[in-house]
């Protein structure tokens, strides 16, 4: 018994020593020892092999099946506007056949619409050996199954404990570190230490997810006194960005562990946390943010204008509030590679704990972060237009589809005004009122 106890203790201490030496210490200074890179290379090769096996296996079985499931669209859309469609049929009067345009649009929306698909995870083109992404892929060969089993063992028995350890260490270090730093008097030493603590904890947390992040255009990194704006896919977006720089967070105060972290971090560095009651008061929120931005010594604020998590295939409407604060906007585009792990949090399907578990049992989180050149609101441009301009820039850089729809549609019903707009446009056509209205669906009628 004692020999057992001693052996376990020895194994644990070796384990912790390795973790300390290979992961924690390099995090402090921001070094990388190349272990993750090695893991990623092995992983990529394995997945490529798996894809080839699947394709070969499928050719033997049902040739068409894989091709059809790979095509992510089931309907061939004819991209015309209402005007072109109906105008091409005849001219300025009502015809019984007009109903077919609306019918077709309706059916297309039922089969596949642009909005609801953004609130569930992106479908993969080829399987990445995780059961959770297995929708249409069938049994192929014994070798593939063996690789899959090995994958399960590696992920659950090796990576998961490691990642949990790192995550715990990371969160603890953040809380303890920021509390300690918070005890110091305000000054440049405090700022420097606060930065160090934040960066180290972020780096540890990123390693806890096996994150491989590629930063592009670092010369455009957000500066002090500015506002950093990014597309939102998951709460870990924050960690991805703070891995490379320090930001002042904006958000609502929570209870529980989040609340503890919030209270600790705000001692070290001026994050902006709002009470629940304050959030409803838009003017108060604006005032505090404006004050923060006006102080050029304060860190850039980090805001996600979509307001909710979207599945990283598109960018939805940016709420204009963030763009009314003033100051320079530093847009950032974040694009995850879904092949290695799905970062999107479908909050209606998974709660926080199951989401984190899924993250920690994926292969890795791989993403690209592009820092875009700073933007300011131009003369004669209102907040909505500015928001759309920034949104287009981010969508273009990240290779995401740009949608005018509000992310809030995840939970709320669509406003009646959009239907009224369609009705107005149609009326103009059949009464032949001359100039056709602009089909600008999606502008915020606030």
């Amino acid at each position, binding site marked *: 018994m004692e020999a057992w106890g001693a052996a376990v203790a020895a194994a644990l201490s070796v384990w912790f020593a390795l973790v300390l030496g290979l992961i924690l210490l390099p995090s402090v200074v921001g070094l990388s020892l190349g272990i993750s890179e090695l893991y990623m290379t092995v992983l990529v090769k394995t997945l490529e092999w798996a894809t080839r096996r699947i394709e070969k296996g499928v050719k033997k079985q049902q040739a068409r099946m894989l091709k*059809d*499931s790979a095509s992510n669209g089931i309907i061939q859309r004819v991209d015309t506007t209402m005007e072109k469609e109906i105008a091409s049929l005849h001219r300025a009067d009502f*015809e*019984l*056949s007009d109903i077919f345009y609306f019918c077709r649009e309706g059916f297309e929306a039922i*089969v596949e619409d642009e909005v609801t698909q953004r609130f569930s995870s992106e479908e993969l083109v080829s399987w990445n050996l995780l059961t959770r992404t297995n929708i249409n892929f069938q049994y192929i060969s014994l070798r593939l199954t063996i690789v899959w089993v090995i994958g399960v063992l590696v992920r659950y028995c090796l990576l998961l404990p490691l990642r949990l350890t790192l995550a715990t260490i990371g969160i603890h270090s953040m809380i303890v570190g920021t509390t300690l730093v918070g005890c110091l008097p305000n000054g440049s030493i405090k700022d420097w230490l606060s930065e160090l603590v934040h960066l180290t904890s972020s780096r540890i947390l990123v390693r806890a997810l096996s994150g491989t992040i590629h930063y592009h255009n670092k010369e455009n990194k957000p500066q002090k006194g500015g506002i950093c704006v990014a597309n939102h896919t998951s709460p870990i977006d924050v960690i991805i960005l703070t891995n490379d720089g320090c930001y002042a967070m904006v958000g609502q105060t929570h209870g529980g562990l989040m609340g503890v972290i919030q209270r600790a971090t705000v001692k070290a560095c001026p994050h902006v946390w709002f009470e629940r009651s304050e959030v409803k008061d838009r003017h108060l929120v604006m005032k505090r943010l404006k004050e923060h931005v006006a102080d050029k010594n304060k860190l850039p604020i980090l805001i996600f204008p979509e307001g909710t998590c979207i599945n990283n295939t598109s960018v939805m409407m940016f709420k204009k509030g963030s763009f009314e604060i003033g100051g320079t906007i530093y847009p950032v585009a974040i694009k995850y590679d879904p092949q290695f792990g799905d970062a999107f949090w479908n909050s209606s399907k998974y709660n926080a704990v199951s989401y984190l578990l899924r993250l920690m049992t994926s292969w890795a989180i791989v993403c690209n972060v592009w820092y875009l050149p700073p933007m300011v609101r131009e003369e004669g441009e209102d907040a909505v237009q500015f928001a759309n301009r920034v949104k287009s820039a981010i969508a273009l850089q990240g290779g995401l589809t740009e949608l005018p729809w509000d992310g809030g549609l995840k939970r709320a019903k669509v406003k009646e005004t959009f239907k009224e707009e*369609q009705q107005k446009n*149609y009326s103009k056509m059949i009464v032949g009122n001359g100039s056709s209205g602009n089909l600008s669906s999606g502008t915020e009628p606030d």
Partner: protein
Amino acid sequence: MGSRASTLLRDEEIEEIKKETGFSHSQITRLYSRFTSLDKGENGTLSREDFQRIPELAINPLGDRIINAFFPEGEDQVNFRGFMRTLAHFRPIEDNEKSKDQNGPEPLNSRSNKLHFAFRLYDLDKDDKISRDELLQVLRMMVGVNISDEQLGSIADRTIQEADQDGDSAISFAEFVKAFQYL
């Protein structure tokens, strides 16, 4: 390691739907995924609210009528078979179908069945005639508040006048079909 979506839908069922609607195997499994993702209550049927949750459908002026077409008379839930049957009306005609045999039952997406579907969108009380009132109702849905009652009335009158051939001031299915001859 089997596929999750189609294990919930048995192969025999897929075959039956294939025969009835003409959709291919993979199209049926895809549409089944779509059906289950719309089915928030997870009880195997869709209600009108499930359809209303699709923003692009909710803003369609004829959205409610189209949704109605999925539900059989007096019912509030539609199952997958009913869903597919209605969708089949708008399935594009494949090339290899054009020269099908004339003796089999007419496919759901034939021109005549499509026209029948459109006719039923107008004909609310299902008396096989589109009356002036029914036409006015649909027109009102499509134009909202932007056209006055009188103007809308005259549009309806003109349409009926043009299509009506037996002088009963209503449009029967045969007259409806004739009006589409030029499309």
